[in-house]
């Protein structure tokens, strides 16, 4: 098992004719993802290799039965693309696009609430994220597939669910796991923006319910309070171990560290150190440095 996506997930690409959209559609397909179509207004009826392109998400969903979408539409139009997918009934929407205005995302989230009232949960992942991958089954996003691994050498169970606000730091962590022969059930990059579709807690909850996931690795950073919320959930509801690394101990206050959401605004509460102290007090295992993420997970796995 895995969370959100697996080998049967039928995926479309919104913004399939753009540079990033077409490149990554190819890369995902090569990895084994069931890419069943793409959307690019005005290009309906054409193909990207053998992938049919449609003018609207509605048409794409009707013709292909797609249930997931990955979005590469440029920032000024991305919020609209998310809404188009959500209103059409797409249940997993992965928005890779970086640079969407905060108020656009706030309005998107308000509208998603209305949609969810009528037709159930929509999983919006991102924006500004690397995407989701269930190793050896389905990759929706821009992460390099080859660094991932599904099974663990230690024992049949023993896979880790990974959730992160970052891109390359997640690759770093996943690569450490893979080198230690620790498999991953699903790796979710929730994105680096201040307003996100799905937060840490929601994804951690999915991992808690997934029978194949033995423990969860959460890679956080400065800014906001998502890490703390996930730690509270862990303390109150989780049976599986939670391991975490928090980036940004050296980040100065009030400066945006690359990610739109990586900024210490709420004073001392949003610093890496304060997050680490809180997570520890909730019983979360903390990787002491970015090069020791893998071994920290390994230690916890072996101690069980």
């Amino acid at each position, binding site marked *: 098992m895995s969370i959100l996506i697996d080998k049967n997930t039928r995926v479309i690409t919104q913004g399939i004719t753009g540079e990033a959209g077409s490149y990554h559609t190819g*890369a995902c397909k090569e990895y084994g993802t069931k890419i069943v179509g793409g959307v690019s207004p005005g290009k309906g009826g054409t193909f990207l290799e053998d992938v049919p392109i449609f003018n609207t998400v509605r048409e794409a969903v009707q013709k292909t039965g797609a249930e997931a979408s990955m979005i590469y539409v440029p*920032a*000024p139009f991305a919020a609209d693309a998310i809404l188009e997918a959500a209103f059409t009934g797409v249940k997993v929407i992965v928005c890779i696009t970086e*640079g*969407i*205005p*905060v*108020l*656009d995302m*706030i*309005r998107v*989230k*308000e509208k998603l609430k209305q949609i969810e009232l009528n037709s159930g949960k929509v999983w919006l992942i991102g924006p500004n994220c690397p995407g989701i991958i269930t190793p050896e089954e389905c990759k929706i996003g*821009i*992460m*390099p597939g*080859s*660094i991932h691994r599904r099974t663990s050498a230690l024992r049949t169970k023993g896979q880790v669910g990974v959730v*992160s*606000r*970052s*891109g*390359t*730091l*997640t*690759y*770093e962590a996943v*690569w450490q796991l893979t080198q230690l022969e620790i498999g991953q059930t699903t790796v979710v990059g929730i994105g*680096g923006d*201040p*307003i996100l579709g799905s937060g840490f807690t929601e994804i951690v909850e999915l991992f808690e319910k997934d029978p194949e996931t033995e423990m969860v690795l959460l*890679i956080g*950073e*400065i*800014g*906001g*309070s998502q890490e703390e*919320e996930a730690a509270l959930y862990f303390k109150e509801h989780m049976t599986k171990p939670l391991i975490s*690394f928090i*980036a*940004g*101990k*050296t*980040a*100065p206050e009030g*400066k*945006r*560290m*690359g*990610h*739109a*959401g*990586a900024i210490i605004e*709420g*004073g001392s509460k949003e610093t*890496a150190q304060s997050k680490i102290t809180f997570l520890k007090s909730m019983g979360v295992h903390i990787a*002491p*440095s*970015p*090069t020791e993420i893998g071994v920290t997970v390994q230690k916890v796995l072996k101690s069980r």
Partner: protein
Amino acid sequence: MKLEEFQAKELLARYQIPVPPNGGVLTQGEDISNALRRCGPAPWVIKAQVQTGGRGKAGGILLVKTPAQAREAVQSLLGKKLVTAQTGAEGILVRRVLVEKTVEIKRELYTSIAIDRKKGMPILIAIAKGGVEVEELAQSSPESIAKLEIDPMSGLETYQARSLLFTLGLYSTDSKLNQERIQFFKNCAQAFLNLDCSLLEINPLAVTSEDQLIALDAKIILDDNALFRHPELKIMESGGSALEQQAKRAGISYIALKGNIGCLVNGAGLAMATMDLIKQCGGDPANFLDVGGGANLAQVTKAFKIILSDKNVKTILVNIFGGIMKCDLVAEGIIAAVKEVNLTVPLVVRLEGNRAEEGLRLLTQSRLNIVSIKELKDAAQKAVELACGVPTPTFS
């Protein structure tokens, strides 16, 4: 994008939010008498336009009663380095001053609108006292802070604004006055939404002797991602160092720090983690630098140039995790960049991921003064060693 006080006030005025009469901004050599005439009769206040808190305490706001005093105040402030609690010892250079007429006030309050990340909504905060430390107050007496969620589609509703008047003790027997005050808060919300602000703060918000609400000081931060919707606001850009702005134009995120190890990393999270690692190894990062996901030769060269403009840099650590990016292409970029900028400080390169072996081989073959190391921890330690000039103890 952080705006200066005078820019923030100009925007507030466009939304019918009252601000004190002003004579404009002076930079150098302009005649002050025109500015004073535009303000109206004395007394006036001369305010340094710098993006830092605690200006008043640091002597950046001067009250003057005569044109001669005003002239002297302007001269003393322009070109001065203002040292406030927030700037550190090196201070911040005053390039512009705002000339304003003083306003007689009865009362000071506080209001601001910001994005509540947890709720995913814009939140209006108001406090019945002005000039307070909001964060401290949130700890000591949270009940004294009024909070209202603003609907991102329709703005602040009248009933919400009216409730604020009661909480803040602004409700009066004069219904016209109440209407005006309700409109004041509704206009603040409208300005926040229409301008795509991340923060709109009026502190102090004052009640004048004529019972009018007025923004005595204002701070606005605009959402950089939304600037495409506001091309007319782009020219207001003034925050950040020259280097930070140069980097921004090249699509690089760069933040100068105080250490001596320059960092060049792909990805923001990994860049932060690399800085943390340097610190853990006993060194000090000179900067945060995220060269971006699809960094090409031009960008790598630009990044090196930016790092090297910081004269404190003794060593550079490059940390690239090749996902989509191919490490051999990155290596080629590094080699070309090193030749172009004529690098004189030691360079430690760690490449991992997509075609890392090929990349490392290219670096070795280049015969340039580049130390290439596969393990991140070893690379960080080596960089610290080179920057300090002595081997450092290993951490565990």
